[in-house]
């Protein structure tokens, strides 16, 4: 889909290398693993935990113009849902092509119901607009 994934933790690139080679669960990993040992970038995105020196579970989608479109941050004990991340990513791609449409919460993929030209006529009539 024309997207680069990069993972970031406060580990060094040397630890990333050692982890990748040691952990068989990572055998299929092809994305670059970025090192942020100073926490500078983790702080920039608001995921740095001063109490531990670690980055919280944050995921951010940035468009080709460099604009931040989505942010999700979970605490240590809750994993992220990859289907939801993919849904948000697909929706962003779709809406970047169809700039007069918006994707409601149940939108999953191309072909699903969108709202077209949301404006004054749709105020109070979203239910009807979703039935069409």
């Amino acid at each position, binding site marked *: *889909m*024309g*997207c*680069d*994934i*990069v*993972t*970031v*933790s*406060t*580990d060094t*690139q040397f*630890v*990333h*290398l*050692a*982890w*990748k080679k*040691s*952990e068989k669960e*990572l055998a299929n*990993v*092809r*994305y*670059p*693993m*970025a*090192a*942020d040992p100073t926490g*500078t970038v*983790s*702080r*920039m*995105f*608001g*995921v740095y935990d001063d109490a*531990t020196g*670690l*980055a*919280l*579970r*944050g*995921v*951010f*989608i*940035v*468009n*080709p*113009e*460099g*604009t*931040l*479109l*989505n*942010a999700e941050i979970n605490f*240590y004990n809750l*994993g992220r849902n990859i289907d939801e*991340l993919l849904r948000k*990513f697909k929706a962003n*791609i779709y809406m970047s092509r169809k700039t007069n449409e918006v994707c409601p919460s149940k939108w999953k993929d191309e072909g699903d119901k969108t709202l077209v030209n949301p404006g004054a006529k749709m105020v109070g009539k979203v239910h009807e607009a979703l039935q069409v």
Partner: protein
Amino acid sequence: MAAACCGLKLGAKVPDFQLTTYDPVKDDFGTFSMQEQINNKRWTILFFYPADFTFV
């Protein structure tokens, strides 16, 4: 590198930054650059996690 703190707002332009990476495809170290992503017109997903050798 911008020493921004405490989070970026949605709709804001992400300040340029660089990070050293381990690239498993090349099995070598490299650099991730936000500006390079913009220059190459690429979408980017940044995925932060607490620590290697844990249970992501």
